[in-house]
């Protein structure tokens, strides 16, 4: 009797530990996910990220326009930033949104697409100082627009 009860207790403990581990794993996996519904908090975070990409692109464009960067660095890094912005544009266009913020989410998606296109131009013309100079103002405005959407 006692042995059977001990086994049940042992089994119960094992199940509890297994469930706990499964929950931890689930929580861990969820931290890495970029999907789900876009709520106000997610909108704020994504707008900050898009603004960050635009501002970094502006810094890079400024350096290229002054001849302070190198061709390979400008080409590769502009493409990295462009891809990141493009990923935001795609994700924000598709993901469901909380009620009341849909228009802002779609606006942010379009803005991210615009940032991506501008950075793509820098990627294609990494040594063209005029192109780089012409991109600074739009990227700066994009960063301001993203900042507005994050509030």
């Amino acid at each position, binding site marked *: 009797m006692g042995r059977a009860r001990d086994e049940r207790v042992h089994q119960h403990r094992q199940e509890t530990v297994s469930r706990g581990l499964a929950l*931890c794993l689930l*929580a*861990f996996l969820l*931290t*890495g996910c970029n999907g789900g519904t876009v709520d106000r*908090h997610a909108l704020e*975070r994504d707008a*900050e*990220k898009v*603004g*960050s990409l635009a*501002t*970094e692109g502006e*810094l*890079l464009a400024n*350096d290229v326009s*002054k*001849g*302070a*960067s*190198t*061709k*390979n*660095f400008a*080409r*590769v*890094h502009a493409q*990295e*930033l462009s891809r*990141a912005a493009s990923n935001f544009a795609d994700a924000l266009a598709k993901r469901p949104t909380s009620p009341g913020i849909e228009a802002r989410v779609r606006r942010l998606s379009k803005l991210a697409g615009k940032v991506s296109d501008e950075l793509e131009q820098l990627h294609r013309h990494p040594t063209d100082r005029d192109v780089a100079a012409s991109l600074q103002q739009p990227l700066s405005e994009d*960063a301001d627009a993203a*900042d507005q959407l994050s509030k």
Partner: protein
Amino acid sequence: MKIFQIALGILAAIGGFVDIGDLVFNVSAGATFGYQLLWVVVIGVIGIITYSEMCGRVAAISGKAVFDAVRERLGFKTGLMALIAAQVVNLMTLTAEIGGVAICLQLLSGLPYRWLILIAGAALAVVVWVTSFDWIERVFGYGGLCLLVFAVAAVKLHPVWGAVGHGFVPHVDTKSPLLYAYFAIGLLGAAMTPYEVYFYSSGGIEERWGPKDLGLNKANAMIGYGLGGFLSFALMIVGGSLFLDKGIEPEFLGSITIGAEVPLGQIGLLLALVGILFAVGGAAIDTLFSGAYALAQFLGWEWGRYRHPRGAPRFTVTWLVLLVIALGLVMTGVDPVQLTEYAVIFSAVALPLTYIPILLVANDRSYMREYTNGTLANVLGLIYLVVILVISLTAIPLMILTNVGQN
């Protein structure tokens, strides 16, 4: 040449403190909290100096490296757990570092990333196979010193020095205390990451340290890790001065180098890229050797780069296999920066299994004779054991609660 004799400490520190994850982590900490977390780096530097000096002394006096001590002091089962944890974290870090080398080469050359992964892997294999341990230390350790360009960049960005000074005083002044705690734990975990001491203690044996080298051991630990800490300060100040006000969240290796490009132009950019290439390449070699050292020491195999590859065949096969697995993993397209951030947090969990045996052996007269720990080493060692326990218990919950530092 005395200057060459501290290469081990410099390589261990540059590979450990400013690898791909730490570069991004330090600059991100600055970009998020300004100079507020500088004090955490100081605590991390004192901790790693304390334990590196200890395990270097153990290596010099007893001829035993860290995993010899782990096996003897923790027993087979617990030791095996420590070994598995160490190997998983080492492999994650090695994968990330190889990816980092390829990214750096891409930013320098513009060639396709996947080809550069293969080139990076082949170059590492050739370097490790044909180059002596001394020259690996010197080339990667001193090449990594190009990162000092970030110290110049930090000054040229004209930070508010009063605020920088205030950053060295422990304080919490933020609306996001959990995120602050996540960065603090991450910075401490990165400073005391276990592979640094595996590499450092085994390196002492590679260099055949004996009792006469105890001064050299102290110099290596203090100068090497002090330099690593100095570079961490510089990176955080660059993050705080350039990125914080502009709202930039640096998430790419290229973003870090913009921190040197903006104040210093092309020369700053190139020095930063070359420095990162050597630092990340050095970290790849640190982790590659650390994985092979840990397994060989735990299983009692012949080991050491000072031997001909045929003189330690299982050690040689181990690092070759680790390199091939890491290359396979990085070819899957995993993001090296994210991977190494996970590695830093997971390594924090394994910290006690590495540092407790070091403290025990450093106090054992049968190994250490008259060279056991003094009062200062024991007081610091015990204080840091508490710090390590706190880090290991809080690292993963904080990672989940802050969505890996994103919220």
